[in-house]
């Protein structure tokens, strides 16, 4: 089980996958919007999305957990 964390502070612009979906290492899970830039946050391992911790529009700080992948 791995926690996918925000690499920087920003707003959740898009949640690209749904809970239960199978994802591969390097696949974008969430796209943040920060400093007017799109910041893709990719899975660091393959597995399935156990839980999404954020909704589109949420503010997240650096290090906040976005999703749990197992």
């Amino acid at each position, binding site marked *: 089980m791995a926690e996918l964390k925000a690499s920087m502070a920003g707003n959740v612009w898009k949640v690209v996958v749904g809970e239960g979906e199978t994802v591969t290492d390097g696949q974008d899970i969430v796209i943040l919007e920060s400093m*007017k*830039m799109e910041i893709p946050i990719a899975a660091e391992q393959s597995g399935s999305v156990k839980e999404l911790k954020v909704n589109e529009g949420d503010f997240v700080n650096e290090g906040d957990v976005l999703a749990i992948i197992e």
Partner: protein
Amino acid sequence: MSQSTKTTLNDIVETIKKGGSTKYHEKNAEKGKLFVRERLQLLFDEGIEIEDAFFANCTSEGLPADGVVTGIGKINGQTVCVMANDSTVKAGSWGAKTVEKIIRIQETAEKLQVPLLYLVDSAGARITDQIEMFPGRRGAGRIFYNQVKLSGKVPQICLLFGPSAAGGAYIPAFCDIVVMVDGNASMYLGSPRMAEMVIGEKVTEEEMGGAKMHCSVSGCGDVLAKSEEEAIAFARRYLSYFPTNYQQKPTPVEAKDPASFEKTLADIIPANQNAPFNMYDLINRVVDEDSVCEIKKLFAPELITTLARINGQPVGIIANQPRVKGGVLFHDSADKAAKFITLCDAFHIPLLFLADIPGFMIGTKVEQAGIIRHGAKMISAMSEATVPKISVVVRKAYGAGLYAMAGPAFEPDCCLALPSAFIAVMGAEAAVNAVYANKINALEPNERGAFIAQKREEYNQDIDIYRLASEMIVDAIVAPNDLRAELTSRFAAYNSKQLTFTDRKHGVYPV
């Protein structure tokens, strides 16, 4: 010389060359660690050629060479000095003669004006010898003093094969570059055992000071190597970009074309400024094939710092990476840039800045981490650099981001722009918001969209890159596919640049 003394000499030499006892050799081999003399064999073109104080402590039992090999050999045909711990002798710990040997090879490197490599694998001070090796004029402190004195005069490289604990951790800290072998190398002031005793923290060795941690989190490590062989090969390659000392220039090699790609540079730069783009794709289309030698790849990857060659000439590249954290500068990336710029400038390696930057990060996290002073450190190092300095605005360069990436006010030899360049205090979205927030709020909701779109359009026209070229803010607009040719001729032209930044003692650095 009589036959009997000759035999004795040979016997003693052979014994010393073997290092410590067999069980320590075996223990090291299990961890994938090579014997110090094997490491030196791989490091040098033709092995170590000159060795001094080989007989140090030879009259004491079990202390061959006093646990360190110091001497001279050649790398890529260039003379270099080396000190290499022997961890089969008292775990590579420092006795009085170990320290004296290290000090002497530093003095030799200074006199000969040649690079010095530190092959570190040491448990630290020998407490039993502390009065002789720790506090005095030629105690271990002098090693660090000498490192500081040598810094910027000759390249200093640390290859970390094992521990470098407590005071010993400062050898890597004062080197230009630290290569750490994953799994074996470690650095810390206090070991996990000591941390548990003194502050009650329970932590693993890897978390405390492992190679991965230092190369990706603390930034104390520059290059993570899978094996000792890889670390040694890296050091040999790294040195090929550097002159022997600060009074010489790096030697060019035969020019190579960039690697070939189906898509040209013009094809890969996204029109949308806010969309991520992989800066490595640009770098690989501009530099000679296989010439990238990246430093701190795993640390603060939103900024790329790499040695490379353009038309055979070494250059140091500082490039924003929009694919990571939007290419925004953080405290760690600014710190990384400052060290790299200083390294290149010290040894006459020209600098190339590739800007695609929304600015410095904002928010409480980074303010508390001191982003302002780390940013100032980068800008200070970049300002003081007197090597040929070219700034290329690839896409956006907003706010202090333009300044940090050697913008026009910072004496680059030229500031080039690609047609996709966008130079402004901030992007159109943010600017229109900042200037017209009250007006937008006062408008009927159905009128807002058109108003915002119109103001953004006006704003973008105001900062149009051709306008900036017309105002002579940028020196040239270059077609992406001509960038390499432009850089080649400009770096060649700037090669004779002579500039002294100042005659003062030194600035008060915002470190």
